[in-house]
């Protein structure tokens, strides 16, 4: 694919914003690392040698009997009995840097939960003795993926609704705008709390619930852009050629609206993540046990004597949201046509 000069100029503008460019790099590294969270924080060894044979417990589930145990359920590699079984046959285990998953309850901390940070738990444990760092890594992944999914779906709906309203105008626009206004006037947080208390939501129902109210943020922007563009002469020219409305929207009008949409995306993403976190904090979000940053904050509030809980959650959110905001600012600058003085024609 060849880049148009415009795209190239925007990329250059993006790179010129050093803070945003570095934020993107750091964020991508964190995201990729967290996508492989199972290899970083897990209660199963990455690699295991037993009687000269290699096993990969991180990917495959082996019953305890494989290693000479008595249970037919999956081996619990952190249990001293299992370790002894494996090591007695001159076997070895390669552990991830953090030998706990987000749900692993560490029964061998030697102090009451929540346990303070130590060499065993770098950021301490929460009030049911789960490793905080592991929960943050998984929580980061869940928050970002959830945020991206919510952003994508709400942009899709928002752009479509805005496009239809803006392009066809008139009564469609009038009625659509009033409906959007009424819908936007609902007390969203209370509705979500009521809906969430009717049934314990899982990730997908929660996504659906939030989607009901989050798609409106883009409607106004896209609608305005369409209202502006639909009277341009090149749109008229396309209509004179007999091009169908759908194709006109797709080829001539939408690309203009995409600039505004893309500029907004990072900020919608931050908003989505914040919404999820606040619901989790209130206890109406993801099902209990999920690795969630909001739940970590709630624990910090309930256990003020264990400041590492609140502080870890706070800094995790701070870093994630700050990176996203910086990226968003850089994207906004990149699409701002007034910033490109370098390539501006002299009169």
């Amino acid at each position, binding site marked *: 694919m060849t880049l148009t000069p*415009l795209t190239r100029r925007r990329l250059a503008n993006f790179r010129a914003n050093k803070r945003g460019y570095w934020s993107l790099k750091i964020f991508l590294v964190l995201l990729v690392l967290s996508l492989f969270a199972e290899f970083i924080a897990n209660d199963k060894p990455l690699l295991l040698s037993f009687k000269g044979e290699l096993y990969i417990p991180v990917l495959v589930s082996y019953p305890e009997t494989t290693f000479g145990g008595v249970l037919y359920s999956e081996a619990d590699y952190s249990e001293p009995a299992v370790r002894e079984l494996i090591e007695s046959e001159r076997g070895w285990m390669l552990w991830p840097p953090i030998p706990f998953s987000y749900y692993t309850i560490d029964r061998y901390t030697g102090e009451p939960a929540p346990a303070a940070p130590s060499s065993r738990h770098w950021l301490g444990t929460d009030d049911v003795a789960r490793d905080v760092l592991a929960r943050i890594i998984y929580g980061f992944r869940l928050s970002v993926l959830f945020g991206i999914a919510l952003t994508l779906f709400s942009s899709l709906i928002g752009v479509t609704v805005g496009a239809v309203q803006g392009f066809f105008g008139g009564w469609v626009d009038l009625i659509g705008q009033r409906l959007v206004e009424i819908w936007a006037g609902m007390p969203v947080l209370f509705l979500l709390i009521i809906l969430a208390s009717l049934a314990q939501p899982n990730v997908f129902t929660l996504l659906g619930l939030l989607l009901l109210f989050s798609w409106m943020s883009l409607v106004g922007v896209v609608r305005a852009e369409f209202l502006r563009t639909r009277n341009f002469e090149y749109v008229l020219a396309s209509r004179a050629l*007999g091009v169908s409305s759908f194709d006109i929207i797709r080829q001539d009008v939408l690309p203009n609206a995409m600039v505004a949409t893309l500029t907004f995306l990072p900020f919608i993403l931050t908003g989505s993540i914040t919404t999820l976190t606040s619901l989790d904090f209130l206890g109406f979000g993801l099902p209990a046990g999920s690795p969630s940053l909001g739940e970590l904050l709630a624990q910090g509030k309930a256990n003020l004597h264990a400041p590492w809980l609140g502080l870890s959650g706070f800094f995790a959110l701070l870093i994630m949201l700050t990176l996203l905001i910086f990226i968003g600012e850089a994207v906004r600058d990149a699409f701002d046509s007034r910033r490109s003085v370098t390539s501006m024609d002299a009169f």
Partner: protein
Amino acid sequence: MSDRILEIKNLSVAFHGSTVVREVDFHIDRGETLALVGESGSGKSVTALSIPQLLPYPQASHPSGSILLDGIEMISASKATLLKMRGNRVSMIFQEPMTSLNPLHTIERQVGEVLFVHQRLGGNAVRKRTLELLEMVGLQRASERLTAFPHELSGGQRQRVMIAMALANEPDLLIADEPTTALDVIIQAQILTLLKDLQSRMNMALLLITHDLVMVRRIADRVCVMNQGCIVETAITKTLFSAPTHVYTRTLLNAQPKGNPVRIKGDSKPLMQADKVSVYFQLGSGFLARKRVLKAVDEVSMTIQTGQTVGVVGESGSGKTTLGMALLRLIRSKGKIVFDGVDIQGLNNKSLKPYRHDMQIVFQDPYGALSPRRSVRQIIEQGLRVHEPHLGDDELATRVDGALEDVGLDSTDKDRYPHEFSGGQRQRIAIARAIILRPRFIVLDEPTSALDMSVQAQVVDLLRDLQARYQLSYLFISHDLKVVRALADELVVMKDGIIIEQGRASDIFERPATEYTRALIAAAFDLEVVNKTSANDGKN
């Protein structure tokens, strides 16, 4: 005080290191009019803006030269000096009177501000002087209009207010940057007469920047011709027009649209017939608002033969463009529209689609008419993809190449984007998009008015050539009668939505039947006559 008000020596202007104006020398005396003539991009506006130091510094710089305004050096002058000079000793009028006035302030306030800033007058004195100025620039019912907002005035009236603001402090030098380009021809003539008159009354120097040679001939004492950042010729106006020395000046003078319209064959049939076509717009819509109706086009009837060009002329707001759109069914209208024997008025979008193949439009603004995000190839082949979807990629490419060749562009350019082309080239692309389907009828909506004079002539030649080759019928909409005369076989003169004169173009040019047509013709070809008619026009 010396007579020499402005002395520019060896002036260069550079943007980001690339020089756009090269070692320009000229001077203006008190009471003299100097015209700076050139095509767009020749550096005339940049030169003018550097006199009051209004360029976007520090992106712009002056590698060499000096600008002496009444003996005071402007380049590297202190901010205080510049502020004292601007609006006081030197003032400017810009091309676009709508954007040059603040839409949120009344006329009184905007003119008064200039007086207040530079002369420190009190409230009553400002008001009195403002009224005086507005009367001086010929704004009718000036005392009532003091409280008017810019949008309540017409283009010509706004330009008069701009002039009043520029003259408020009786400057030594007035820079007029294309002061009439955005105005209708008849108003143009009035504004020019006003400028000339005020100049002699106030004995100020006038620097006129323009591409319109008719205007130069009428009011300039001396002319500087600019090309690619250099002044190629400076001469007394009369000498320049009678004996131009530089090659470029000669091409500029010869670049008038020439030639005669294509004759239609005797047996040609009517292709497009409009019978009492009307387009009404509702103003003040809403539940309770009083409904008013704007009759943009009112019961217009006309016939266009195969291979014929019908010119539609009239000032802006006369409904020319609306008529063109209505004939192509791009806006809703009433009345009968018969294309090739079929009434297309009642057809829905689907049954209209085959006719879209035969009817096309070319717009005025070559910048707005091409989607900035699509390559030239995508723009041109769009019509083929809709109407001849069976074509393969190879055939599409051949047809696109053919269309580009037809309009005189290189087929290797097809993967570039519109912004990489000049105005004239863009207009060629727009024409290529229209003709690739081999339509039979094309509406040309002011296709030349956004272009430079020499490019206009080329586009007119191209259009005539294509017409002869493909037996095209044109509806040629324009306010510029010079171009219309070179292309149109029949003429329709519109005013306020109705046709006031209709017939063979040659007859109308020789014996215009209405006052309005006479004024239009006079404005296009000869300014002297306009002065008489403009006085009449001013009354209504």
